[in-house]
Protein backbone atom coordinates (compact mmCIF):
# COMPACT_ATOMS: atom_id res chain seq x y z
CA UNK A 1 0.00 0.00 0.00
CA UNK A 2 2.72 2.38 0.97
CA UNK A 3 4.79 1.00 -1.80
CA UNK A 4 2.59 2.12 -4.61
CA UNK A 5 4.61 5.17 -5.52
CA UNK A 6 7.59 2.92 -6.05
CA UNK A 7 5.74 0.76 -8.51
CA UNK A 8 4.87 3.74 -10.57
CA UNK A 9 8.08 5.63 -10.35
CA UNK A 10 8.01 7.69 -13.47
CA UNK A 11 10.81 7.44 -15.94
CA UNK A 12 11.85 11.01 -15.73
CA UNK A 13 14.74 13.00 -16.95
CA UNK A 14 16.44 13.07 -20.24
CA UNK A 15 17.33 9.42 -20.19
CA UNK A 16 17.68 7.65 -23.45
CA UNK A 17 14.95 5.43 -24.69
CA UNK A 18 17.20 2.47 -24.05
CA UNK A 19 17.29 3.51 -20.45
CA UNK A 20 13.58 4.04 -20.14
CA UNK A 21 12.03 1.25 -22.09
CA UNK A 22 11.35 -1.18 -19.23
CA UNK A 23 9.30 1.40 -17.39
CA UNK A 24 7.65 2.61 -20.55
CA UNK A 25 6.76 -0.92 -21.50
CA UNK A 26 5.24 -1.60 -18.14
CA UNK A 27 3.27 1.61 -18.10
CA UNK A 28 2.03 1.05 -21.60
CA UNK A 29 0.83 -2.45 -20.85
CA UNK A 30 -0.75 -1.32 -17.61
CA UNK A 31 -2.44 1.45 -19.51
CA UNK A 32 -4.63 -1.06 -21.30
CA UNK A 33 -6.32 -1.95 -18.05
CA UNK A 34 -8.86 0.04 -16.06
CA UNK A 35 -7.31 2.40 -13.56
CA UNK A 36 -8.10 0.48 -10.34
CA UNK A 37 -6.28 -2.52 -11.69
CA UNK A 38 -3.26 -0.70 -13.00
CA UNK A 39 -1.15 -1.05 -9.87
CA UNK A 40 -1.86 -4.76 -9.79
CA UNK A 41 -0.93 -5.22 -13.41
CA UNK A 42 2.15 -3.13 -13.00
CA UNK A 43 3.25 -5.18 -10.03
CA UNK A 44 2.54 -8.38 -11.83
CA UNK A 45 4.63 -7.29 -14.77
CA UNK A 46 7.50 -6.45 -12.44
CA UNK A 47 7.19 -9.79 -10.71
CA UNK A 48 7.01 -11.66 -13.96
CA UNK A 49 10.02 -9.81 -15.29
CA UNK A 50 12.03 -10.57 -12.20
CA UNK A 51 11.09 -14.21 -12.13
CA UNK A 52 11.72 -14.62 -15.84
CA UNK A 53 14.99 -12.75 -15.95
CA UNK A 54 16.45 -14.21 -12.82
CA UNK A 55 15.14 -17.63 -13.68
CA UNK A 56 17.14 -17.30 -16.85
CA UNK A 57 20.10 -15.99 -14.92
CA UNK A 58 19.81 -18.97 -12.63
CA UNK A 59 19.81 -21.35 -15.58
CA UNK A 60 22.75 -19.63 -17.16
CA UNK A 61 24.51 -19.52 -13.84
CA UNK A 62 24.35 -23.28 -13.33
CA UNK A 63 26.00 -23.74 -16.67
CA UNK A 64 28.48 -20.95 -16.07
CA UNK A 65 29.41 -22.41 -12.74
CA UNK A 66 30.01 -25.83 -14.16
CA UNK A 67 31.97 -24.43 -17.04
CA UNK A 68 34.09 -22.31 -14.78
CA UNK A 69 34.67 -25.03 -12.24
CA UNK A 70 35.77 -27.17 -15.15
CA UNK A 71 38.24 -24.53 -16.20
CA UNK A 72 39.52 -24.24 -12.66
CA UNK A 73 40.25 -27.94 -12.79
CA UNK A 74 41.63 -27.76 -16.33
CA UNK A 75 38.58 -29.36 -17.89
CA UNK A 76 36.36 -27.92 -20.59
CA UNK A 77 33.16 -28.43 -18.59
CA UNK A 78 29.82 -29.52 -20.03
CA UNK A 79 29.93 -29.23 -23.79
CA UNK A 80 27.70 -31.94 -25.15
CA UNK A 81 24.17 -30.63 -24.91
CA UNK A 82 23.79 -28.21 -27.73
CA UNK A 83 26.54 -25.96 -29.03
CA UNK A 84 29.16 -25.54 -26.31
CA UNK A 85 26.77 -27.28 -23.95
CA UNK A 86 24.49 -24.28 -23.93
CA UNK A 87 21.38 -26.40 -23.64
CA UNK A 88 22.66 -28.13 -20.53
CA UNK A 89 20.41 -26.17 -18.13
CA UNK A 90 17.36 -27.24 -20.11
CA UNK A 91 18.46 -30.83 -19.98
CA UNK A 92 19.04 -30.53 -16.27
CA UNK A 93 15.64 -29.00 -15.80
CA UNK A 94 13.93 -31.78 -17.71
CA UNK A 95 15.85 -34.35 -15.71
CA UNK A 96 14.86 -32.77 -12.44
CA UNK A 97 11.24 -32.48 -13.44
CA UNK A 98 10.94 -36.05 -14.54
CA UNK A 99 12.68 -37.55 -11.56
CA UNK A 100 10.76 -39.44 -8.96
CA UNK A 101 9.80 -37.37 -5.96
CA UNK A 102 10.63 -39.43 -2.91
CA UNK A 103 9.39 -38.56 0.54
CA UNK A 104 10.57 -40.68 3.47
CA UNK A 105 7.75 -42.47 5.20
CA UNK A 106 8.52 -41.09 8.66
CA UNK A 107 9.10 -37.56 7.41
CA UNK A 108 6.94 -34.67 8.42
CA UNK A 109 5.15 -34.47 5.14
CA UNK A 110 3.79 -30.99 5.36
CA UNK A 111 7.02 -29.41 6.42
CA UNK A 112 8.95 -31.53 4.00
CA UNK A 113 6.85 -30.06 1.26
CA UNK A 114 6.81 -26.53 2.64
CA UNK A 115 10.54 -26.17 3.18
CA UNK A 116 11.68 -25.78 -0.45
CA UNK A 117 8.69 -23.65 -1.28
CA UNK A 118 9.27 -21.34 1.66
CA UNK A 119 12.96 -21.14 0.91
CA UNK A 120 12.39 -20.15 -2.67
CA UNK A 121 9.64 -17.72 -1.73
CA UNK A 122 11.82 -15.96 0.79
CA UNK A 123 14.75 -15.73 -1.58
CA UNK A 124 12.58 -14.25 -4.30
CA UNK A 125 11.10 -11.82 -1.78
CA UNK A 126 14.48 -10.25 -1.36
CA UNK A 127 14.52 -9.19 -4.99
CA UNK A 128 11.70 -6.80 -4.35
CA UNK A 129 13.85 -3.95 -3.10
CA UNK A 130 16.98 -4.24 -5.19
CA UNK A 131 17.36 -1.40 -7.69
CA UNK A 132 18.22 -3.11 -10.93
CA UNK A 133 18.63 0.09 -12.81
CA UNK A 134 17.74 3.72 -12.78
CA UNK A 135 14.11 3.85 -11.56
CA UNK A 136 13.98 0.08 -11.83
CA UNK A 137 13.07 -0.65 -8.25
CA UNK A 138 10.17 -3.05 -7.84
CA UNK A 139 9.36 -1.75 -4.38
CA UNK A 140 10.61 1.58 -3.14
CA UNK A 141 10.75 1.27 0.63
CA UNK A 142 11.98 3.66 3.24
CA UNK A 143 13.56 0.82 5.17
CA UNK A 144 14.55 -1.28 2.21
CA UNK A 145 17.81 -2.54 3.67
CA UNK A 146 16.02 -3.73 6.74
CA UNK A 147 13.41 -5.40 4.57
CA UNK A 148 16.07 -7.19 2.62
CA UNK A 149 17.65 -8.72 5.66
CA UNK A 150 14.33 -9.44 7.31
CA UNK A 151 13.33 -11.46 4.26
CA UNK A 152 16.77 -13.05 4.13
CA UNK A 153 16.61 -14.04 7.77
CA UNK A 154 13.60 -16.20 7.05
CA UNK A 155 15.59 -18.49 4.77
CA UNK A 156 17.29 -19.98 7.80
CA UNK A 157 13.92 -21.11 8.94
CA UNK A 158 13.27 -22.92 5.69
CA UNK A 159 16.56 -24.74 5.89
CA UNK A 160 15.78 -25.75 9.41
CA UNK A 161 12.37 -26.99 8.31
CA UNK A 162 13.93 -29.05 5.56
CA UNK A 163 16.48 -30.59 7.87
CA UNK A 164 14.06 -31.33 10.63
CA UNK A 165 11.22 -32.60 8.47
CA UNK A 166 13.42 -35.19 6.77
CA UNK A 167 13.72 -37.31 9.90
CA UNK A 168 17.27 -38.11 9.01
CA UNK A 169 20.12 -37.65 11.38
CA UNK A 170 22.33 -36.15 8.75
CA UNK A 171 19.62 -33.73 7.81
CA UNK A 172 19.06 -32.74 11.40
CA UNK A 173 22.76 -32.23 11.95
CA UNK A 174 22.79 -30.13 8.84
CA UNK A 175 19.87 -28.12 10.12
CA UNK A 176 21.65 -27.41 13.37
CA UNK A 177 24.81 -26.55 11.55
CA UNK A 178 22.87 -24.28 9.30
CA UNK A 179 21.29 -22.53 12.26
CA UNK A 180 24.60 -22.02 13.97
CA UNK A 181 26.26 -20.86 10.82
CA UNK A 182 23.53 -18.52 9.71
CA UNK A 183 23.17 -16.95 13.14
CA UNK A 184 26.91 -16.54 13.44
CA UNK A 185 27.25 -14.85 10.09
CA UNK A 186 24.12 -12.75 10.31
CA UNK A 187 26.02 -10.57 12.75
CA UNK A 188 29.06 -9.66 10.63
CA UNK A 189 26.77 -9.32 7.62
CA UNK A 190 24.63 -6.77 9.39
CA UNK A 191 27.56 -5.06 11.05
CA UNK A 192 29.45 -4.76 7.81
CA UNK A 193 26.98 -2.45 6.19
CA UNK A 194 26.03 -0.44 9.26
CA UNK A 195 28.87 2.00 8.42
CA UNK A 196 27.25 2.58 5.06
CA UNK A 197 23.91 3.34 6.61
CA UNK A 198 25.70 5.62 9.02
CA UNK A 199 27.47 7.49 6.23
CA UNK A 200 24.55 7.54 3.82
CA UNK A 201 22.10 8.41 6.54
CA UNK A 202 19.35 6.36 4.99
CA UNK A 203 18.00 2.84 4.86
CA UNK A 204 16.63 3.29 1.40
CA UNK A 205 18.44 1.56 -1.43
CA UNK A 206 17.98 4.37 -3.89
CA UNK A 207 19.13 6.79 -1.24
CA UNK A 208 22.31 4.80 -0.75
CA UNK A 209 22.94 4.69 -4.48
CA UNK A 210 22.35 8.40 -4.75
CA UNK A 211 25.01 8.93 -2.12
CA UNK A 212 27.49 7.16 -4.35
CA UNK A 213 26.91 9.36 -7.36
CA UNK A 214 29.71 11.34 -8.89
CA UNK A 215 33.41 10.96 -9.36
CA UNK A 216 36.48 12.08 -7.48
CA UNK A 217 39.01 13.80 -9.75
CA UNK A 218 36.63 12.99 -12.57
CA UNK A 219 37.44 9.30 -12.81
CA UNK A 220 37.35 7.60 -9.43
CA UNK A 221 33.74 6.76 -8.68
CA UNK A 222 32.49 7.77 -5.27
CA UNK A 223 31.55 4.23 -4.48
CA UNK A 224 31.90 3.13 -0.93
CA UNK A 225 34.28 0.37 -1.86
CA UNK A 226 36.84 3.01 -2.72
CA UNK A 227 37.18 4.10 0.88
CA UNK A 228 39.29 2.20 3.41
CA UNK A 229 36.39 1.33 5.63
CA UNK A 230 34.20 0.58 2.64
CA UNK A 231 36.70 -1.85 1.28
CA UNK A 232 37.00 -3.59 4.61
CA UNK A 233 33.23 -3.67 4.95
CA UNK A 234 32.96 -5.09 1.46
CA UNK A 235 35.39 -7.86 2.28
CA UNK A 236 33.50 -8.70 5.46
CA UNK A 237 30.23 -8.55 3.58
CA UNK A 238 31.57 -10.86 0.92
CA UNK A 239 32.73 -13.47 3.40
CA UNK A 240 29.51 -13.27 5.38
CA UNK A 241 27.45 -13.41 2.20
CA UNK A 242 29.27 -16.55 1.14
CA UNK A 243 28.42 -18.06 4.47
CA UNK A 244 24.83 -16.85 4.40
CA UNK A 245 24.22 -18.34 0.99
CA UNK A 246 25.82 -21.63 2.06
CA UNK A 247 28.37 -21.39 -0.67
CA UNK A 248 31.70 -23.10 -0.58
CA UNK A 249 33.90 -22.75 1.46
CA UNK A 250 31.04 -22.34 3.93
CA UNK A 251 28.84 -25.13 2.61
CA UNK A 252 28.86 -27.05 5.85
CA UNK A 253 25.12 -27.56 6.00
CA UNK A 254 25.30 -29.39 2.68
CA UNK A 255 28.75 -30.89 2.99
CA UNK A 256 28.40 -33.79 0.58
CA UNK A 257 31.41 -35.57 1.95
CA UNK A 258 30.41 -35.31 5.60
CA UNK A 259 26.65 -35.12 5.74
CA UNK A 260 25.77 -36.62 2.36
CA UNK A 261 24.31 -33.28 1.30
CA UNK A 262 22.77 -32.49 4.69
CA UNK A 263 19.32 -31.07 4.57
CA UNK A 264 19.08 -32.02 0.91
CA UNK A 265 19.60 -35.70 1.61
CA UNK A 266 15.95 -36.63 1.51
CA UNK A 267 15.03 -34.37 -1.35
CA UNK A 268 14.91 -35.38 -4.94
CA UNK A 269 13.46 -34.29 -8.19
CA UNK A 270 11.85 -30.92 -8.44
CA UNK A 271 12.01 -30.13 -4.74
CA UNK A 272 15.74 -30.55 -4.94
CA UNK A 273 15.76 -28.23 -7.93
CA UNK A 274 13.85 -25.68 -5.89
CA UNK A 275 16.50 -25.77 -3.19
CA UNK A 276 19.11 -25.37 -5.81
CA UNK A 277 17.30 -22.47 -7.32
CA UNK A 278 16.78 -20.82 -3.95
CA UNK A 279 20.45 -21.06 -3.19
CA UNK A 280 21.35 -19.36 -6.43
CA UNK A 281 18.66 -16.76 -5.98
CA UNK A 282 20.02 -16.04 -2.54
CA UNK A 283 23.47 -15.65 -4.00
CA UNK A 284 22.21 -13.34 -6.72
CA UNK A 285 20.23 -11.27 -4.23
CA UNK A 286 23.20 -10.88 -1.90
CA UNK A 287 25.35 -9.92 -4.85
CA UNK A 288 22.78 -7.37 -5.86
CA UNK A 289 22.86 -6.06 -2.30
CA UNK A 290 26.62 -5.86 -2.37
CA UNK A 291 26.44 -3.97 -5.64
CA UNK A 292 23.94 -1.55 -4.22
CA UNK A 293 25.77 -0.99 -0.98
CA UNK A 294 29.36 -0.93 -2.10
CA UNK A 295 29.67 -0.80 -5.86
CA UNK A 296 27.49 2.17 -6.62
CA UNK A 297 24.48 0.17 -7.70
CA UNK A 298 23.65 0.62 -11.34
CA UNK A 299 25.98 3.56 -11.76
CA UNK A 300 28.60 3.56 -14.47
CA UNK A 301 32.19 3.47 -13.31
CA UNK A 302 33.38 6.22 -15.62
CA UNK A 303 31.60 9.36 -16.81
CA UNK A 304 31.87 8.65 -20.52
CA UNK A 305 30.42 5.19 -20.07
CA UNK A 306 27.09 6.51 -18.90
CA UNK A 307 25.48 6.01 -22.28
CA UNK A 308 25.26 2.30 -21.55
CA UNK A 309 21.91 1.64 -19.86
CA UNK A 310 22.04 1.37 -16.12
CA UNK A 311 20.55 -2.12 -15.94
CA UNK A 312 23.39 -3.38 -18.08
CA UNK A 313 25.85 -1.95 -15.63
CA UNK A 314 24.01 -3.68 -12.86
CA UNK A 315 24.15 -6.89 -14.86
CA UNK A 316 27.85 -6.51 -15.51
CA UNK A 317 28.61 -5.97 -11.86
CA UNK A 318 26.37 -8.87 -10.93
CA UNK A 319 28.16 -11.10 -13.38
CA UNK A 320 31.49 -10.03 -11.98
CA UNK A 321 30.47 -10.81 -8.42
CA UNK A 322 28.97 -14.14 -9.40
CA UNK A 323 32.15 -15.07 -11.20
CA UNK A 324 34.05 -14.15 -8.07
CA UNK A 325 31.78 -16.41 -6.04
CA UNK A 326 32.34 -19.28 -8.45
CA UNK A 327 36.04 -18.65 -8.51
CA UNK A 328 36.14 -18.78 -4.72
CA UNK A 329 34.12 -21.95 -4.74
CA UNK A 330 36.58 -23.52 -7.13
CA UNK A 331 39.53 -22.59 -4.97
CA UNK A 332 38.94 -23.04 -1.29
CA UNK A 333 38.31 -26.19 0.68
CA UNK A 334 35.50 -26.35 3.18
CA UNK A 335 36.00 -25.05 6.69
CA UNK A 336 35.53 -27.09 9.81
CA UNK A 337 32.69 -26.20 12.16
CA UNK A 338 34.94 -24.73 14.84
CA UNK A 339 36.93 -22.80 12.28
CA UNK A 340 33.71 -21.46 10.88
CA UNK A 341 32.39 -20.10 14.13
CA UNK A 342 35.80 -18.89 15.21
CA UNK A 343 36.17 -16.94 12.03
CA UNK A 344 32.85 -15.27 12.62
CA UNK A 345 33.07 -14.45 16.30
CA UNK A 346 36.74 -13.86 16.77
CA UNK A 347 37.57 -12.20 13.52
CA UNK A 348 34.73 -10.84 11.46
CA UNK A 349 32.61 -9.42 14.26
CA UNK A 350 35.43 -7.54 15.98
CA UNK A 351 36.72 -6.40 12.64
CA UNK A 352 33.31 -5.12 11.67
CA UNK A 353 33.01 -3.30 14.98
CA UNK A 354 36.41 -1.70 14.46
CA UNK A 355 35.30 -0.80 11.00
CA UNK A 356 32.31 0.96 12.45
CA UNK A 357 34.73 3.13 14.39
CA UNK A 358 36.76 3.75 11.28
CA UNK A 359 33.67 4.85 9.42
CA UNK A 360 32.76 7.13 12.30
CA UNK A 361 36.20 8.67 12.05
CA UNK A 362 35.74 9.04 8.32
CA UNK A 363 32.42 10.72 8.80
CA UNK A 364 33.74 13.07 11.46
CA UNK A 365 36.69 14.12 9.34
CA UNK A 366 34.72 14.72 6.17
CA UNK A 367 35.66 18.37 6.37
CA UNK A 368 39.37 17.76 6.15
CA UNK A 369 41.05 18.81 2.97
CA UNK A 370 44.47 19.31 1.50
CA UNK A 371 47.23 17.55 3.42
CA UNK A 372 44.72 16.69 6.11
CA UNK A 373 42.97 14.61 3.49
CA UNK A 374 46.11 12.52 3.23
CA UNK A 375 46.22 12.19 6.99
CA UNK A 376 42.59 11.15 6.94
CA UNK A 377 43.35 8.41 4.46
CA UNK A 378 46.41 7.33 6.35
CA UNK A 379 44.63 7.08 9.65
CA UNK A 380 41.67 5.31 8.12
CA UNK A 381 43.85 2.78 6.35
CA UNK A 382 45.79 2.19 9.53
CA UNK A 383 42.53 1.73 11.41
CA UNK A 384 41.59 -0.93 8.92
CA UNK A 385 44.90 -2.67 8.49
CA UNK A 386 46.12 -2.80 12.06
CA UNK A 387 43.08 -4.59 13.51
CA UNK A 388 43.08 -6.86 10.50
CA UNK A 389 46.68 -7.86 11.03
CA UNK A 390 46.35 -8.20 14.79
CA UNK A 391 43.10 -10.13 14.67
CA UNK A 392 44.43 -12.21 11.84
CA UNK A 393 47.45 -13.06 13.91
CA UNK A 394 45.19 -14.09 16.75
CA UNK A 395 43.09 -16.15 14.38
CA UNK A 396 46.01 -18.02 12.88
CA UNK A 397 47.86 -18.43 16.14
CA UNK A 398 49.12 -21.95 16.45
CA UNK A 399 48.32 -22.69 12.85
CA UNK A 400 51.51 -22.88 10.88
CA UNK A 401 51.59 -23.54 7.17
CA UNK A 402 51.50 -27.28 6.84
CA UNK A 403 54.46 -29.14 5.49
CA UNK A 404 53.75 -32.47 3.96
CA UNK A 405 56.43 -35.04 4.28
CA UNK A 406 54.78 -37.40 1.86
CA UNK A 407 52.84 -35.64 -0.76
Amino acid at each position, binding site marked *: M*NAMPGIFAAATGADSLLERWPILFRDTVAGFFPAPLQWLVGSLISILAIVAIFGGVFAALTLLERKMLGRVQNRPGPNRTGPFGLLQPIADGIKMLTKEDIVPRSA*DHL*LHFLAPVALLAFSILTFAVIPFGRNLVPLE*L*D*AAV*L*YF*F*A*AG*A*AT*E*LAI*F*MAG*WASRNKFS*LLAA*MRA*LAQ*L*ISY*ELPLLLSFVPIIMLA*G*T*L*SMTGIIDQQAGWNFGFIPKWYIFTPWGFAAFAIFLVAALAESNRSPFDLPEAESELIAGHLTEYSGFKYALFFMAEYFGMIALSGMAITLFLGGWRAPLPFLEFIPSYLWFGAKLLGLLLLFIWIRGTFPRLRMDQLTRLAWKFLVPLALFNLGTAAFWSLTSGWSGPLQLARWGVAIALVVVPFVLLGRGLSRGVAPRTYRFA
Partner: protein
Amino acid sequence: MTGLLIIALVTLVPAAVAMALRNVIHSALLLILSWAGIAAFYFWAGAEFLAFSQVLVYVGAISMVVLFAVLLTRHTRTDGGVAPDTLGRALAGLLIGGAVLGVLFGAVLSTPLPIGSKPAAAVTVHGLGVELMERHTIALLVVGVLLTVALLGAVVLAASDSRSGPEDAR
Protein backbone atom coordinates in the same frame (compact mmCIF):
# COMPACT_ATOMS: atom_id res chain seq x y z
CA MET B 1 -10.78 -3.31 7.63
CA THR B 2 -10.57 -6.50 5.66
CA GLY B 3 -6.83 -6.23 5.89
CA LEU B 4 -7.09 -6.14 9.62
CA LEU B 5 -9.37 -9.16 9.66
CA ILE B 6 -7.02 -11.17 7.50
CA ILE B 7 -4.14 -10.19 9.71
CA ALA B 8 -6.12 -11.17 12.77
CA LEU B 9 -6.81 -14.53 11.20
CA VAL B 10 -3.16 -15.08 10.31
CA THR B 11 -2.11 -14.08 13.77
CA LEU B 12 -4.67 -15.73 15.97
CA VAL B 13 -5.25 -19.07 14.31
CA PRO B 14 -1.65 -20.21 14.21
CA ALA B 15 -1.13 -18.98 17.74
CA ALA B 16 -4.15 -20.88 18.99
CA VAL B 17 -3.21 -24.03 17.12
CA ALA B 18 0.38 -23.73 18.28
CA MET B 19 -0.73 -23.71 21.88
CA ALA B 20 -2.73 -26.87 21.31
CA LEU B 21 -0.24 -28.98 19.41
CA ARG B 22 1.80 -31.74 20.97
CA ASN B 23 4.75 -31.32 18.67
CA VAL B 24 6.89 -28.49 20.00
CA ILE B 25 8.60 -27.90 16.69
CA HIS B 26 5.28 -27.48 14.96
CA SER B 27 4.19 -25.14 17.70
CA ALA B 28 7.31 -23.07 17.30
CA LEU B 29 6.92 -22.87 13.53
CA LEU B 30 3.30 -21.88 13.84
CA LEU B 31 4.19 -19.25 16.37
CA ILE B 32 6.69 -17.88 13.93
CA LEU B 33 3.86 -17.56 11.45
CA SER B 34 1.88 -15.75 14.10
CA TRP B 35 4.75 -13.37 14.72
CA ALA B 36 4.94 -12.73 11.03
CA GLY B 37 1.25 -11.87 11.22
CA ILE B 38 2.03 -9.35 13.91
CA ALA B 39 4.66 -7.89 11.62
CA ALA B 40 1.97 -7.62 8.99
CA PHE B 41 -0.14 -5.75 11.50
CA TYR B 42 2.67 -3.29 12.06
CA PHE B 43 2.99 -2.86 8.33
CA TRP B 44 -0.72 -2.32 8.07
CA ALA B 45 -0.57 0.27 10.79
CA GLY B 46 2.10 2.17 8.90
CA ALA B 47 5.09 1.28 11.04
CA GLU B 48 7.07 -0.44 8.34
CA PHE B 49 10.38 -0.07 10.12
CA LEU B 50 8.84 -1.84 13.08
CA ALA B 51 7.44 -4.56 10.83
CA PHE B 52 10.85 -5.36 9.44
CA SER B 53 12.38 -5.21 12.89
CA GLN B 54 9.75 -7.63 14.10
CA VAL B 55 10.54 -10.03 11.27
CA LEU B 56 14.25 -9.68 11.78
CA VAL B 57 14.11 -10.17 15.51
CA TYR B 58 11.31 -12.68 15.89
CA VAL B 59 11.40 -14.66 12.69
CA GLY B 60 15.12 -14.31 12.24
CA ALA B 61 16.53 -14.50 15.72
CA ILE B 62 14.15 -15.55 18.46
CA SER B 63 12.75 -18.38 16.38
CA MET B 64 16.27 -19.68 15.89
CA VAL B 65 16.92 -19.59 19.58
CA VAL B 66 13.64 -21.35 20.27
CA LEU B 67 14.35 -24.07 17.75
CA PHE B 68 17.81 -24.52 19.13
CA ALA B 69 16.46 -24.80 22.61
CA VAL B 70 13.95 -27.39 21.43
CA LEU B 71 16.63 -29.41 19.72
CA LEU B 72 18.92 -29.22 22.72
CA THR B 73 16.23 -30.39 25.14
CA ARG B 74 14.68 -33.24 23.24
CA HIS B 75 14.21 -36.69 24.76
CA THR B 76 12.24 -35.41 27.66
CA ARG B 77 9.87 -37.58 29.52
CA THR B 78 7.00 -35.54 28.19
CA ASP B 79 7.73 -36.92 24.79
CA GLY B 80 6.55 -40.25 26.01
CA GLY B 81 3.16 -39.62 27.46
CA VAL B 82 0.78 -37.15 28.92
CA ALA B 83 1.48 -36.06 32.44
CA PRO B 84 -1.27 -36.98 34.89
CA ASP B 85 -2.20 -33.46 35.78
CA THR B 86 -2.34 -32.23 32.19
CA LEU B 87 -6.06 -32.26 31.77
CA GLY B 88 -6.76 -30.45 34.96
CA ARG B 89 -4.19 -27.83 34.24
CA ALA B 90 -5.43 -27.36 30.73
CA LEU B 91 -8.99 -26.94 31.96
CA ALA B 92 -7.91 -24.46 34.58
CA GLY B 93 -5.90 -22.62 32.00
CA LEU B 94 -8.77 -22.48 29.60
CA LEU B 95 -11.12 -21.34 32.29
CA ILE B 96 -8.91 -18.60 33.54
CA GLY B 97 -7.86 -17.57 30.07
CA GLY B 98 -11.48 -17.42 29.04
CA ALA B 99 -12.23 -15.29 32.05
CA VAL B 100 -9.46 -12.90 31.17
CA LEU B 101 -10.64 -12.82 27.59
CA GLY B 102 -14.15 -12.05 28.69
CA VAL B 103 -13.02 -9.34 31.01
CA LEU B 104 -10.80 -7.77 28.39
CA PHE B 105 -13.44 -7.92 25.69
CA GLY B 106 -15.97 -6.47 28.04
CA ALA B 107 -13.63 -3.69 28.95
CA VAL B 108 -12.76 -2.93 25.33
CA LEU B 109 -16.28 -3.11 24.02
CA SER B 110 -17.71 -1.02 26.77
CA THR B 111 -15.25 1.76 26.17
CA PRO B 112 -16.19 4.39 23.65
CA LEU B 113 -13.06 5.12 21.64
CA PRO B 114 -12.47 7.98 19.29
CA ILE B 115 -12.46 7.21 15.61
CA GLY B 116 -8.90 8.09 14.82
CA SER B 117 -8.11 9.83 11.62
CA LYS B 118 -5.56 8.33 9.29
CA PRO B 119 -2.18 9.81 9.97
CA ALA B 120 -1.16 12.24 7.33
CA ALA B 121 2.41 11.04 7.08
CA ALA B 122 3.80 7.93 8.64
CA VAL B 123 6.91 8.25 10.73
CA THR B 124 9.95 8.03 8.50
CA VAL B 125 12.94 5.94 9.38
CA HIS B 126 14.99 9.07 9.45
CA GLY B 127 12.60 10.68 11.89
CA LEU B 128 12.71 7.61 14.08
CA GLY B 129 16.48 7.63 14.03
CA VAL B 130 16.64 11.27 14.98
CA GLU B 131 14.17 10.77 17.78
CA LEU B 132 16.02 7.70 18.98
CA MET B 133 19.32 9.51 19.05
CA GLU B 134 18.10 12.73 20.52
CA ARG B 135 15.21 12.25 22.85
CA HIS B 136 15.73 8.65 23.81
CA THR B 137 19.48 8.42 23.97
CA ILE B 138 19.49 7.19 27.52
CA ALA B 139 16.94 4.52 26.76
CA LEU B 140 18.96 3.45 23.75
CA LEU B 141 22.08 3.14 25.86
CA VAL B 142 20.24 1.25 28.54
CA VAL B 143 18.83 -1.16 25.98
CA GLY B 144 22.32 -1.65 24.59
CA VAL B 145 23.63 -2.48 28.03
CA LEU B 146 20.65 -4.72 28.67
CA LEU B 147 21.24 -6.66 25.48
CA THR B 148 24.90 -7.07 26.26
CA VAL B 149 24.15 -8.28 29.74
CA ALA B 150 21.49 -10.61 28.42
CA LEU B 151 23.91 -12.00 25.88
CA LEU B 152 26.53 -12.64 28.51
CA GLY B 153 23.98 -13.99 30.91
CA ALA B 154 22.55 -16.35 28.33
CA VAL B 155 26.00 -17.62 27.49
CA VAL B 156 26.85 -18.15 31.12
CA LEU B 157 23.56 -19.89 31.82
CA ALA B 158 23.63 -22.10 28.80
CA ALA B 159 27.30 -22.98 29.04
CA SER B 160 27.69 -26.28 30.82
CA ASP B 161 29.20 -26.25 34.26
CA SER B 162 31.94 -28.74 33.63
CA ARG B 163 34.58 -28.79 31.00
CA SER B 164 33.23 -31.96 29.51
CA GLY B 165 30.14 -30.16 28.33
CA PRO B 166 29.16 -31.36 24.88
CA GLU B 167 27.90 -34.80 25.81
CA ASP B 168 25.78 -33.16 28.45
CA ALA B 169 23.82 -31.24 25.89
CA ARG B 170 22.26 -34.05 24.02
